[in-house]
Structure formats: structure tokens, C-alpha cells
């Protein structure tokens, strides 16, 4: 099929904070240098910000560098008064840490909703003349004849039915060609996976590892004492995950009697019967949290993963014709639980390199590698290097984690072993054949929701008549080894109830997929013990419609 081609100087794939900051910075730099540059951003969500979900405590460092006048430009900020409290939770009680470690200090930061923030950045990019295309998924990287240089991205076809046949409204994808393509797909990008396999950008690094989070924005009664509490930013560890599973909870005060609430679960967990969504409900039912959110109503729910590997999992940052930024390139600082500022900064550093490369008309990897050099000279390096073993320490069981953390604390991040090893999340599950713990009861559909009500409140919608975007290469494995060894963990780790076990007419077990429920968090591809799930982009515009998370 002959596809239409559109040419740009620079193409950004994904409209998260990394790429939006990159595109804005690039346009501004070009203007300052009196250069014309055609820039495009594509995003699979139906509008910019609709697939953005985060905490989020924003460290404004990169934002200040990008848009010093962000306050005057009505940057959507929820809360400026950040006062921290860290709690250790037991099943029925809590203990507030008398001392908050310096990297957890959040004074001077802001609470934001990433969906609103990205929508705002998107509008600024458009004002600067960036071509912003929401509703278009990149489904294939394009290469030159040598097969080594990235020359752009193909967008997905639209209007294909379940059987793969074009419908009357069929609209073929187009080839977007660019001198430089910037991949900022967030955690576990579906294109970076292909580019990585082909060009080996992950070779010789420690494996990419992730955490998954379920988050809600809850409206609480105006009379709720939390609205006047001495702290506005709560982090918890301990219950319900215990000390053997990495992760913890967060609760932030927002505007308009709202709070942001979430539980993060390290995807290196071992218990095949664990269900992150149930842990989230248990977390909500803990007295500390239940008191704060009591009488409230969930306005929006969603789930997303975050790239938690840090410094030692950074991939090769440039290939011929392309660079990698943000969570896709492991820029998140796990120690500070923050990746927005580093994502933005990485996009901006990439933009500086790209402008120079495009001006010289030389986009070879050796030239684009200047981005890595800039990164290593920037404050990102300072942050990520100091935290280089932090995530690994968190993955230690029980009190061993505190010993490792303590050693790192006094040695500038080195600790006892440097580097500490990182293992693939897909390999951590231990066989589990028992029955999962009983699910949390008393869901009221207002404050405590089952998964499907949560999916409903994420606004998730996909064109129903389209090919399944979740590829299961070996369906038989699901009902044999995976069921026998792990009791089908996909039915538990997916927060959207996409995977269900069912029986065929002949009474045999069968994996049933509800791809329309997919929240695009990609936990399945990361955690499947047999790597038997491949996440691809569904028809552009489908997925969650986040607006406040």
C-alpha cells in the first residue's frame, strides 16, 4: 500500500512531560537562533494529557529553566504549601517517622495533576508552532535502507475491524519522516522495545524494572480535618505490602477539597497470588487513610507504571537518527519518587543536541551522543548517580533494606556493593498454587470501588470493533504451565480486569481478554512470567480519558 508521507525536522513520539518540554525548548531555541524548524508531536491519547497519570509532587527545577514565567502563564498548580509526613503502617496502626530523610523533603515543590499539566504544556507547544497530533499512535519505527538509521515513525491504521479487514471509514496510517525522532513513550514503550531489539540499546545494561501504581482523585467533605492538617504530603510504607514487597502509599492535598491517593507496588514482587488492586483497597481501608478520605467520593481512577531502575538501567541514549528521553530512558529518580523534572530536563538536553545536529545536517549517533554528554554534565547525573543503588536496596527483604539504605546514606550512594544487581521483573514470581487471600469486602461504589467501576471512572473507551491490541503468542501456555505454576497471575496484576479465566463450551479453561478495559499501564507485558504478552498500541484515540489524575 502506498502511504502518505509527511516530513518534519524533528518528530517527538509521545506527549508526556519529557517530549513536551523537549518540543517547547527546541522551538524556543530555534527562534532565538533565528532558525525555522518543523516540529511534530504525536500522542496515542485522544487529547494531550488524557494518558498522563502521576502523583504528583513536581520539583519545578526543569520547569523554571523551560518557562521561567510559568506562574504568569497559568500553570495548573494544585497546591504550593507542601509539608511532609512519612508513616510506617502496621495492620491497624501507624507510626510517624520523627525524621524525614532529606531526599523526601518536598518544600518548594508543587502538587500538580499530570493530565492538566501536560494539557497545559501541549497548548504552549502549539502556541509556539509545534504540530501537536493527539489521537495518533506510533506503531512502527521506520529505517533507511541500511536498516540502522531511524528515519521516522508510521502511525497506526484506523478503521480496521476485529478480523483485520478495513471498514468503510478505513484511514491508513501515514509515514512521518524526520531528521531526528525522539522517543518519549514513558515506561515500557512499545516502539522503543522494537528499536531496542533491533539496534541493541539495552544490551549490556541491567534490565529495565518497574513499579505499578493505582491512583485515585477523591473529593472529600469540606469539613474534613485533613484540609487543615499540619501536613499536606503523606508517604507510607509497611502495611499492606509489608517489608518484603517494595512499594508504598501516597496521599497529597489538592485544590477544591480533593486529594490524590495512590499505592505503588514494585513489580519485582514474588507472591504469584498478590493482587496490586486488592492491596490498594487494603491501603485505603487502613485507619490512617480511611479517616482522611472518609465521606469522600472517587472522581477519577487510573493506573500506570513507572520506570524504577535508575542509573544502571539507562539505555544507550542515541542511535543514528533518534534519541530516547524520560521514563523510556530510565530517567526517573526512585529515591525522590520523582520523574517529571528529570523527564523534562532530559527532553530539553536532547533538544539542545538536536538543534545543533539538524543545523549541521549530521544526525549520526556519534553526533547525537552529545545528548549523553550534556546529561552527564547536568543535575540529572547528580541526582541519578547518588540514587544509583537505592531501588535495589528497597528490593531487599525485611530489615536488610534499611541496612543497605543506611550504608548508602553515609557513602554517597555506594553502599556495600556498587553496583547492586537488578533482576528482570518477569523472573521474580515464585510458584503459587494456593487460593489468593479473600478480596476486600464492603465496596460501596462511591469511595471503595471494584475494578470495573474504576475502569469506568478512568473514562477508558476503545473502538470495540478492532483487532485485539494484546498479543499472546502462545495461548496454550496460559491454560497449562502458567495456570499450573502461578494460577494465571495476569488475572490479578492487571488493574483493569482485562484478563479473565473462563471455560470453553467443552468445559476447558480458556483465557478471555477484555482489551477494551485496558488502561495502557503495561503491567502485563512487564510482569508476565513467561513474557507471553506483548502490548501494542490500539487504534489511536482509544484508552483512558484522564483529566485530573
Amino acid at each position, binding site marked *: 500500500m502506498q502511504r*502518505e508521507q509527511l516530513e518534519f525536522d524533528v518528530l517527538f513520539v509521545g506527549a508526556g512531560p519529557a517530549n513536551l518540554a523537549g518540543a517547547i525548548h527546541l522551538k524556543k531555541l530555534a527562534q532565538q537562533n533565528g532558525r525555522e524548524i518543523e516540529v511534530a508531536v504525536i500522542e496515542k491519547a485522544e487529547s494531550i494529557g488524557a494518558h498522563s497519570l502521576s502523583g504528583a509532587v513536581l520539583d519545578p527545577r526543569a520547569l523554571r529553566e523551560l518557562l521561567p514565567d510559568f506562574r504568569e502563564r497559568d500553570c495548573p498548580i494544585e497546591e504550593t504549601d507542601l509539608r511532609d509526613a512519612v508513616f510506617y503502617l502496621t495492620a491497624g496502626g501507624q507510626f510517624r517517622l520523627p525524621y524525614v530523610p532529606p531526599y523526601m523533603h518536598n518544600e518548594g515543590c508543587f502538587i500538580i495533576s499530570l493530565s492538566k499539566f501536560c494539557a497545559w504544556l501541549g497548548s504552549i507547544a502549539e502556541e509556539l508552532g509545534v504540530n501537536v497530533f493527539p489521537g495518533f499512535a506510533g506503531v512502527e519505527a521506520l529505517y533507511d535502507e541500511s536498516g540502522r538509521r531511524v528515519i521516522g515513525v508510521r502511525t497506526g491504521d484506523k*478503521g480496521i475491524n476485529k478480523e483485520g479487514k478495513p471498514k*468503510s*471509514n478505513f484511514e491508513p496510517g501515514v509515514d*512521518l519522516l524526520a531528521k531526528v525522532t525522539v522517543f518519549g513513550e514513558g515506561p515500557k514503550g512499545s516502539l522503543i522495545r522494537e528499536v531496542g531489539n533491533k539496534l541493541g540499546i539495552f544490551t549490556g545494561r541491567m534490565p529495565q524494572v518497574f513499579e505499578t501504581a493505582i491512583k485515585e482523585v477523591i473529593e472529600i467533605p469540606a469539613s474534613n480535618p485533613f484540609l487543615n492538617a499540619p501536613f499536606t504530603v503523606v508517604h507510607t510504607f509497611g502495611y499492606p505490602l509489608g517489608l518484603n514487597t517494595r512499594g508504598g502509599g501516597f496521599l497529597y492535598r489538592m485544590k477544591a477539597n480533593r486529594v490524590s491517593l495512590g499505592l505503588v507496588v514494585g513489580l519485582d514482587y514474588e507472591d504469584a497470588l498478590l493482587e496490586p488492586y486488592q492491596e490498594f483497597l487494603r491501603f485505603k481501608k487502613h485507619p490512617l487513610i480511611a479517616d482522611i478520605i472518609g465521606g469522600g467520593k472517587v472522581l477519577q481512577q487510573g493506573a500506570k507504571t513507572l520506570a524504577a531502575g535508575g542509573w544502571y538501567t539507562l539505555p544507550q541514549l542515541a542511535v543514528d537518527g533518534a534519541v530516547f528521553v524520560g521514563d523510556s530512558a530510565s530517567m526517573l529518580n526512585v529515591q525522590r519518587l520523582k520523574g517529571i523534572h528529570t523527564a523534562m530536563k532530559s527532553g530539553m538536553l536532547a533538544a539542545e543536541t538536536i538543534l545543533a545536529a539538524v543545523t549541521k545536517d549530521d544526525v549520526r549517533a556519534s553526533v547525537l551522543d552529545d545528548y549523553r554528554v550534556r546529561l552527564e554534565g547536568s543535575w540529572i547525573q547528580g541526582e541519578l548517580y547518588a540514587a544509583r543503588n537505592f531501588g535495589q536496596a528497597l528490593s531487599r527483604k525485611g530489615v536488610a533494606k534499611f541496612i543497605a539504605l543506611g550504608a548508602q546514606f553515609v557513602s554517597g550512594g555506594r553502599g556495600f556493593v556498587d553496583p547492586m544487581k537488578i533482576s528482570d521483573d518477569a523472573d521474580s514470581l515464585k510458584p503459587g498454587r494456593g487460593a489468593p487471600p479473600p478480596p476486600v469486602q464492603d465496596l460501596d461504589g462511591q469511595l471503595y470501588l471494584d475494578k470495573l467501576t474504576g475502569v469506568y471512572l478512568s*473514562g477508558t473507551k476503545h473502538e470495540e470493533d478492532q483487532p485485539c491490541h494484546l498479543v499472546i503468542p502462545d495461548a496454550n501456555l496460559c491454560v497449562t504451565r502458567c495456570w499450573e505454576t502461578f494460577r494465571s497471575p495476569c488475572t490479578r496484576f492487571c488493574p483493569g480486569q482485562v484478563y479473565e479465566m473462563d471455560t470453553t463450551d467443552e468445559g476447558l479453561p480458556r483465557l478471555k481478554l477484555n482489551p477494551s478495559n485496558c488502561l495502557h499501564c503495561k503491567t502485563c507485558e512487564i510482569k508476565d512470567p513467561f513474557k507471553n504478552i506483548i502490548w501494542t498500541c490500539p487504534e489511536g484515540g482509544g484508552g483512558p*480519558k484522564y*483529566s*485530573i489524575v
Partner: protein
Amino acid sequence: MDIVVLVKQVPDTESLVQIAGDGVSIKKDDIKWIMNPYDELAVEEALRIKEAKGGTVTVLSVGAQKAQETIRTALAMGADKGLLVNDPAAEGGDALATARILAAAVKNLPFDLIIAGQRAVDEDNYQVGAAVAEFLGIPHVSLVSKAELLEGRIRCQRAVEGGSVTVEAPLPALFTTQRGLNEPRYASLPGIMKAKKKPLEVKTVAALGLDPARVGAAGRKVVVKALRLPPERKAVRMIAGETPAAIAAELVRVLHEEARLI
């Protein structure tokens, strides 16, 4: 064939809809805005007619500055030009007041055919299309599921209880859309690029020669007393059983004995 399509920007019903403090409007901060789905059908039908017969497609909307996005979407689908009536005086109108503005705007445009959605999914009035036709003194056919152009006439099929009727009207005429009329096309990427350069005019009420006192909130006849969200849906009850026949029997029993519907 010159076609005018009436499009309205409405809140996405999937987005977070909450009633505002005044009790008679909705909170606008956290909602997403989209083209009314029935108007997508209207744009698609206009484009198909244009592709078959030639002519122009003009997209007309009354709304705030933001409604330009919706007009751009229609232009990206393939419409030729857009006209937005954006005026504080036009704000807060009911169906009749809005139709008055639309009719005045259409009068200044060449047109053989007007296509509108059957209803906008925000207020569900089912009135604007018919009222515009009345103001213009042209025939109107509602809830059309199939349209066919003949020489100087239009033949429309509309669903009625237990079947469908076919009606004809001389042009110029107006019809409103029903699901099934077509499958709207996607705005393509090249289409979006082209749409940026297509003409989109913005006019005020005064420029249309209308008296501001007869439109918008001032011209309103219908007063909203209160807004309420629909009652929360009760949890779904799954009916289980060994065989389809047993399930059906149980369903009939529940509908008869418990729900008392049959």
C-alpha cells in the same frame, strides 16, 4: 451542491461531569469537549454528498472560542470552511434562541442543503434542527438513517415504530441525523495539517443583524430550575444457569416475579 452543517461542541459524556455550585449548570473545568456525535454523522454525510456531486461544505457553530477546535476537526475531516458565532450575547441561550442565531447566519451563506444532528448529547433537546428550518421557511426531515439526492429533491428514510418511512422534500431542505446513517471518517493527519490553512471566520451577533435581546440568555424562554445526575445504577445481577434454556427461564421468572415488568 452547497451544504451547511450545524455542529455543536459538547462535553464528552465519558468525562467527569459534575453539577456546579449554582445547581443549574455543570462544572466546566475538568471536562473534555468533543464534537456532538450526531454532528459527526452530519459532517460525514455532507462530505459524501460533496464527493459524489461536487460543491462546498461549510461548518457552522454557535459557541465559545474553544468551539473552533470542533470546527477544525470538521475541516480536518474534509469540510471547506468554518463559521463560528462567538459573542457573549449568544451565551446561555435555549434551543430556540440558538436556532435564531444559526438561521440568521445561514441566510448569508449559499446553501442547497442543511444537515444537523438529531440532538446534542448535552441537553438532548431535539429542537434546534427543526427550529432552524422553521426560521428559514424550508422543509425539514428528522432522524434520517438514509439520504439520497434526486434532481432538486432529497429522499430520506427514517425509522418509525415497526418499520421505516421514506419521505421526499424539495431543496433547499434540512435534515437531522440518526445512528446508522454512515460511519464517520477519522480526521487524518494530512487532513489536520490542511485544516490549519482553511478559512474559519468568527462573527458576532450584531454582525448578523440580530437584536442581542432576542438571543442568548436574554432571549431564553426555557428556564432551568435544577440539574440532577441520573440515579446511580444498581449493581448488575448476573443470571447463571446450566443451559441457555434454564437461564432464559430464570430471566423470565425474575422479570415477571421480581421486576414485575412482564
